[in-house]
């Protein structure tokens, strides 16, 4: 039994190479593993990708290399059916030499390994016969913790896979053109990254491309008060306050809005709109282009507003409101 287990370990070491990232074979076991042909019974789920494990190219190569014939004991791949077959095999006493990829979780491991002592502890065997895996465990103690049962014994060998693109899926990209323009190198620390962001923010406001910000109402709702800019809450801002925020943000032209109250007259609506616009133009450092159109800026809400109304509002915005445009 012990002889079979050692062969199984050597096979695993040779086949997987999972324990060494480079082809530095430190195995003390030369090939073939046994001078005489021996048979190893392996219980494993039938994968759909493999047509026939007996005739599989890798199986044949493996057997020729190691002089170990593998007798495959196949089970369904579907988890519940696999578990059922596993339990049946163990209950019947028809134990294989190795369970390979049989999805034996910690509960089964505790039951069959610790309680019923059906699984062979591998600690000493790893120590004496698996130098590559032993070295890997020394470098990765967390892996050892994961494969060690509560009684301190190791009953199974892991499939080790370092998936870099899994762990680093959330990549960040940076526009190097901006970095070159600023004479900065690619940031390597969070402090450097913050500095790059501040520098890019400055450049973004200095590209020469004008940004015109037009509002949609005289009062900002600001997402139930959740939105802020430079520490100022946007909700509840009137046009003259919105203007100041837009100036801070670096916009080139600000477009205030005064929506028409359809229950009121044109003079009432125009008066209201002009009040907002004048409050803006008196303090504005940038051009103010109020929104004047269907239902806004004093103009009534019609698809074809009367032309005399439109022209009155338009002229009033310029002459009384001192708007810089529309």
């Amino acid at each position, binding site marked *: 039994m012990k002889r079979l287990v050692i062969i199984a370990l050597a096979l695993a070491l040779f086949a997987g190479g999972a324990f060494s990232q480079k082809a530095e074979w430190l195995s003390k076991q030369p090939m073939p593993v046994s001078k005489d042909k021996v048979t190893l019974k392996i219980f494993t789920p039938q994968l759909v990708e493999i047509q026939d494990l007996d005739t599989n190219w890798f199986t044949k190569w493996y057997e020729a290399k190691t002089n170990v014939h593998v007798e495959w004991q196949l089970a369904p791949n579907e988890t519940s059916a696999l578990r059922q077959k596993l339990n049946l095999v163990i209950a019947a006493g028809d134990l294989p030499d190795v369970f390979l990829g049989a999805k034996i979780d910690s509960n089964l491991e505790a039951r069959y390994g610790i309680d019923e002592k059906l699984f062979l502890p591998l600690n000493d065997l790893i120590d004496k016969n698996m130098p590559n895996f032993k070295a890997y465990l020394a470098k990765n103690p967390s892996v050892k913790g994961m494969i060690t049962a509560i009684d301190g014994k190791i009953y199974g060998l892991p499939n080790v896979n370092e998936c870099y693109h899994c762990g680093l899926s959330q990549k960040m990209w940076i526009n190097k053109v901006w970095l070159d323009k600023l004479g900065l190198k690619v940031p390597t620390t969070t402090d450097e990254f913050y500095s790059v962001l501040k520098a890019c923010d400055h450049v973004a406001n200095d590209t020469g*491309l004008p940004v015109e910000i037009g509002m949609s109402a005289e009062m900002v709702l600001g997402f139930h008060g959740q939105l802020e800019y430079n520490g100022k809450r946007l909700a509840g801002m009137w046009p003259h306050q919105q203007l100041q925020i837009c100036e801070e943000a670096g916009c*080139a*032209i600000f477009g205030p809005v005064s929506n028409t109250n359809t229950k009121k007259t044109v003079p009432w609506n125009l008066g209201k709109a002009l009040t907002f616009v004048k409050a803006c133009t008196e303090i504005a450092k940038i051009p103010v282009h109020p929104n004047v159109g269907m239902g806004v800026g004093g*103009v009534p809400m019609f698809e*074809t507003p009367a032309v005399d109304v439109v022209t009155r509002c338009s002229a009033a915005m310029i002459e009384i409101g001192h708007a810089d445009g529309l």
Partner: protein
Amino acid sequence: MHIAHLLASSMGGIRAAGDLVARMQLSKKMRITEAKEYVADKLHVTPLDLSDPTLMRQLREELDIGVITGVPGIAKGMAAKVRIADLLDIKINCVEQFKKKTGLVSG
């Protein structure tokens, strides 16, 4: 409605000098008075002249910076914009991109 706005309060756009004044507001964030004074200075006219379509038509043809009607031989589109950028001493983004793509040296 645009026509109503145009007739009631506009500077006439490309018919006069409204487009030039608008460019100064956009590119240099100038308020309208400042923008008019700047453009008038560049064109060697008074700010009031900027809204005169007759005067401005003549001037625009002389400077070849585009006119409201499609006159053969007179600059239009990108050609007019290149001249406007030079005249007003401003950078117009599409002009810069055009120069880059065509390999023309930026003036």
